């Protein structure tokens, strides 16, 4: 378990749960965790067929759960049920997130509430729902998806996205401290510019100019960092947010 000294990034026999797994970064995370040997629970409001096929193509079991992450009660119940049925959970990846570009002056209460619910509250509630099981089994790994926007204030994103991502960075550390005595390790990945369906912005038009490495990141770039943090390779790493940015300035 996570109290053991670090070893290879292998997840054979482990159970993982990935939110926002239908596409983009979440889909890549599900595939990479499965490739490392994990059976994977998949949560999204969208069709999970592609994610299920990706996991099964790696010879692992997939459990799709169609779920609206803005529905706090449903998240609490379905995640708890999932963990109870498996009787264990080794890895929770709180990946799901909405991009909101609405400026402050135009941001409605409803949009703010929705973005906070999906980006932040769902991560808190899902972590709460897996907590008793992780404590009982002597540990586990929780990985949160942060963002360059959460460090830098955002260039394309608006205040709702920026604030929730900044909050997730803080949550990483808080959960790390509370989890440490139980062997629960908490870390984050902060992606820089990543090419997905969610990130089609004019400022990303010329990919070569977006990062010092001369390319935008791909979902796989993030997924490999998540695997490192979700696997026994990082058993002495907790409370950290790893920048995966192609060298793009991340603030700190």
């Amino acid at each position, binding site marked *: 378990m996570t109290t053991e000294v670090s070893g290879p990034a*292998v997840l054979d026999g482990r159970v993982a749960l990935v939110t926002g797994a239908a596409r983009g970064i979440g889909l890549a995370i599900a595939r990479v965790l499965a490739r490392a040997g994990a059976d994977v629970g998949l949560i999204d409001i969208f069709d999970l067929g592609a994610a299920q096929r990706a996991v099964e193509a790696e010879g692992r079991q997939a459990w799709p759960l169609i779920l609206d992450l803005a529905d706090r009660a449903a998240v609490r119940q379905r995640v708890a049920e999932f963990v109870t049925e498996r009787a264990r959970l080794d890895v929770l990846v709180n990946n799901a997130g909405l991009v909101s570009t609405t400026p402050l002056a135009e941001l409605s209460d409803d949009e703010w509430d929705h973005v906070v619910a999906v980006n932040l509250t769902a991560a808190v509630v899902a972590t709460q729902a897996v907590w008793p099981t992780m404590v009982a089994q002597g540990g586990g790994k929780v990985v949160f998806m942060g963002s360059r926007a959460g460090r830098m204030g955002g260039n394309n994103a608006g205040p709702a996205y920026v604030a929730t991502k900044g909050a997730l960075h803080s949550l990483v550390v808080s959960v790390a401290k509370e989890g440490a005595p139980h062997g629960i390790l908490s870390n984050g990945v902060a992606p820089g510019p990543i090419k997905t369906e969610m990130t089609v912005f004019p400022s990303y038009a010329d990919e070569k100019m977006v990062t010092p490495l001369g390319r935008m990141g791909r979902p796989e770039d993030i997924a*490999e*960092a998540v695997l490192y943090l979700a696997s026994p390779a990082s058993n*002495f790493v907790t409370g950290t947010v*790893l920048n995966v940015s192609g060298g793009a300035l991340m603030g700190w």
Partner: protein
Amino acid sequence: MSGGAAEFVGMVACVTGGARGIGRGVAHALVAEGAKVVLADRDADAVEATAREFPDGTAAPVVVDITTAAGARVMVDCALERFGGINVLVNCAGITTKAPFLELPEEDWDAVLAVDLKGPFLCTQAAAREMLKRGGGAVVNITSIAAEQGNPLAVHYAAAKGGLKMLTTATALALSRYGIRVNAVGPGLVETPLTSSRLADEEIRAHSLERIPLGRFGRVEEIVEAVLFLASERASYITGASLYVDGGWTKALYGASYEDIQLARLSGGRR
């Protein structure tokens, strides 16, 4: 590292401070993944003994002073001559002394800054000049939690490691156009031959463990896992980053490690 994925097959790495501790561990892991390594160290006996631990033809010891450009060049030339290239540089070599700030000798400052900061600069420059001819490479600098939280008994070390953290960021920007990535791994308190005697002191041991959220010391192999990840293609979009492998210590806000006990002993009990 991923269970013998052999992800460094055909690659050549230079590891400074390769004779012992983290450098030795990194070198072994790289060779296990298929790389050839140059072990650079200033301790001739130790580096030659370490080189004999490796399978024939996989490791070359070289005795160099990395605080000079000539020394850094000798290390890189060794990689070119023995193994035909250089793809990875791991700057592990580091030293420190301990002294209260008011008594810290100027020569200690110079010696620690030379090895811990100027050395990585010179080695990265020498290595990058060759890496760019081969389309890129990866550099990993071993920093320290001292880069974030300081150290009252080793302000020179803390300043050097803080400098190395920024050297990481700045060289990442300088070298990205050549496909060379530069990242840092910041170890917390790791049990090595170097730290074991201090950690044998019960008061220091207990005091330190209290301050590490995970409640244990790190091991060389955990630093090695982080180094191999950042050096590998799995991290091909990561550059300029610092990854702390510290059991949560940098976020614990408990201040420096057992130095405050040593400081208290030196100052007659006042912390």
